[in-house]
């Protein structure tokens, strides 16, 4: 649809309307944006204040002094460092596993003409919207039966399997845009399917994988429910349930909790700002083609 508009340049058509936005509307958008940022900017400021300053002077006061103590305390004493490490130990293998398997799925669903290709694809699409609660009890039980409840493996396996639906969906649509002739000429040269997959299809999927990986990283890293259900040992908790746990212990010290929260967000924020274009690309898959 969009291709026609882009390929034929015409003098009259411009991608964006020429008339500017009404100043009042623009002002509302600006005020809205600033209001939207208040909780975030406020949190960052709060994290540099001392507990006494914050409680006695309130949120809107000018900080008496700025301190890094909350961060130092959160990192060492509260064990945020340990939780953060756990999050990476869980997220990275799950991410790699999920993308490897999903790219295999995507390749098979696009490359081969077989009756089950469409039904399998729709099974994955349907799985995208499944309520997590529908899986909670059997998955909890399954990890117990496999003896992996309360280990990193429980979360690694579950995330790998559950995220297959979305990942296959994204990569399969990405694969669809690759001309089939590329594979056929490789076929004629005598290459086997796995060679074609590894040498041609996988490298071609890399831009799609970049979008997918930024999004999946954020999702797996930020998961709360499954971490809550599958890992109860404090030493193994990822950052999300770790933080929730700390909230219980340090109920009153908000600046400390906020410092911990900001540390918790740093990896996803880095991924987001470094790969913003891919992140947005990933989010909009499914809503529009391409």
């Amino acid at each position, binding site marked *: 649809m969009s291709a026609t508009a882009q390929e034929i340049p015409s003098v009259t058509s*411009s991608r*964006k309307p020429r008339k500017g936005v009404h100043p009042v509307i623009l002002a509302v958008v600006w005020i809205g944006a600033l209001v939207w940022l208040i909780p975030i900017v406020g949190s960052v400021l709060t994290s540099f204040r001392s507990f006494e300053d914050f409680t006695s002077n*309130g949120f809107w006061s000018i900080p008496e002094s700025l301190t890094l103590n909350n961060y130092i305390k959160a990192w060492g004493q509260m064990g945020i460092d340990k939780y953060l490490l756990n999050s990476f130990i869980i997220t990275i293998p799950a991410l790699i596993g999920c993308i490897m398997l999903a790219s295999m799925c995507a390749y*098979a669903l696009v490359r081969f003409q077989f009756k089950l290709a469409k039904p399998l694809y729709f099974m994955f699409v349907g799985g995208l919207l499944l309520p997590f609660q529908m899986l909670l009890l059997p998955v909890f039980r399954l990890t117990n039966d496999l003896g992996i409840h309360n280990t990193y493996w429980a979360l690694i396996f579950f995330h790998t399997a*559950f995220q297959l639906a979305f990942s296959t969906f994204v990569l399969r649509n990405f694969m669809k845009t690759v001309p089939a002739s590329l594979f056929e000429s490789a076929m004629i040269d005598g290459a086997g399917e796995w060679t074609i997959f590894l040498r041609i299809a996988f490298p071609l999927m890399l831009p799609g994988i970049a979008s997918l990986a930024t999004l999946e990283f954020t999702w797996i890293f930020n998961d709360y429910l499954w971490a809550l259900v599958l890992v109860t040992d404090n030493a193994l908790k990822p950052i999300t349930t770790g933080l929730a746990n700390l909230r219980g212990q340090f109920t009153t010290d908000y600046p400390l909790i906020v410092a911990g929260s900001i540390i918790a967000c740093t990896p996803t924020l880095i991924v987001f700002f470094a790969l913003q274009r891919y992140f947005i690309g990933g989010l909009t898959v499914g809503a529009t083609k391409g």
Partner: protein
Amino acid sequence: MVQTPIRTVNRQQRAFNQFLAIFSFLAVPLLLYTVWVIYPTFRTLYLSLTDWDGLPGPINFVGLENFQRLITEEPFQKSIVNNILWIIVFITVPTSLGLGLAMVLNTEVKFDRFLKVAYYLPLVLATVVAALVWARGVYSPREGLLNSFLALFMGDAAYKIQWLGDPNLAIWSVIGAAVWRQVGYVMILYLAGLKTVDAEVLEAAKMDGAEGWTLFRYMVFPMLAPVTTIVVVISVIDSLRSFDMVNIMTRGGPFDSSNVLANYMYLSFEDYRMGYAASIAVVLFAISLVFIFFYLREVMRQEEGQ
């Protein structure tokens, strides 16, 4: 007749080779998906008809008893009402705000990148962090951002407002925080959708004198219909999935006033009322199915359009 057997063998051989190839790619992912997603889905359907208490041992089949009990119990009724409120707010407020923002930011606006980031930054934060920030930083009665701001106008009376502690306010406060996260998401979806709107068609309409609201109402909005379908489905599904926010901010309290199905299901699981918890999950699933159907239909339509 003489030649065909060789060909059939070849064809069979080729079909078998293709089957092997397909199998080698799909076996592992499908096995994983079946064990961790497909089987659990059906297992939960079965468990909802039992009185399983989470312990190993015989599981008793009790028919629809869980569901009968469910509809008479107050926490469930409150949860379902709250889920409906959540859905209504989600398909109206963030959707229209996100669409409006997308319309504005799709034009030539200075600092549009900053504005976009401001609106979708909340989406990048973990829900756990967003929930902590809102529960403690924004809604906290004494030092929270909201009450200390209101105090500038209302004086000390503002400090009495219990955003999360008042049963009449709690659910609205939680939904408010969730809306804060959702607006940017909808905006991104519509911005992507607007890129596919045919600029030439719009230009032609403008030549015919269509402008402002008319142009939007009769040209742009209808062209965005597929995006709107997806946005509505995603909003509903996100509403039904709302767990993190509720669990962290209020745990469904006070007195289940801010409970939702996803959280109520989790609390029942914590209480070892597994069969009962499964039946709540099935209710959630049943509501989701309607929207999964709409979503699938939209995806299928795009599929045929290729």
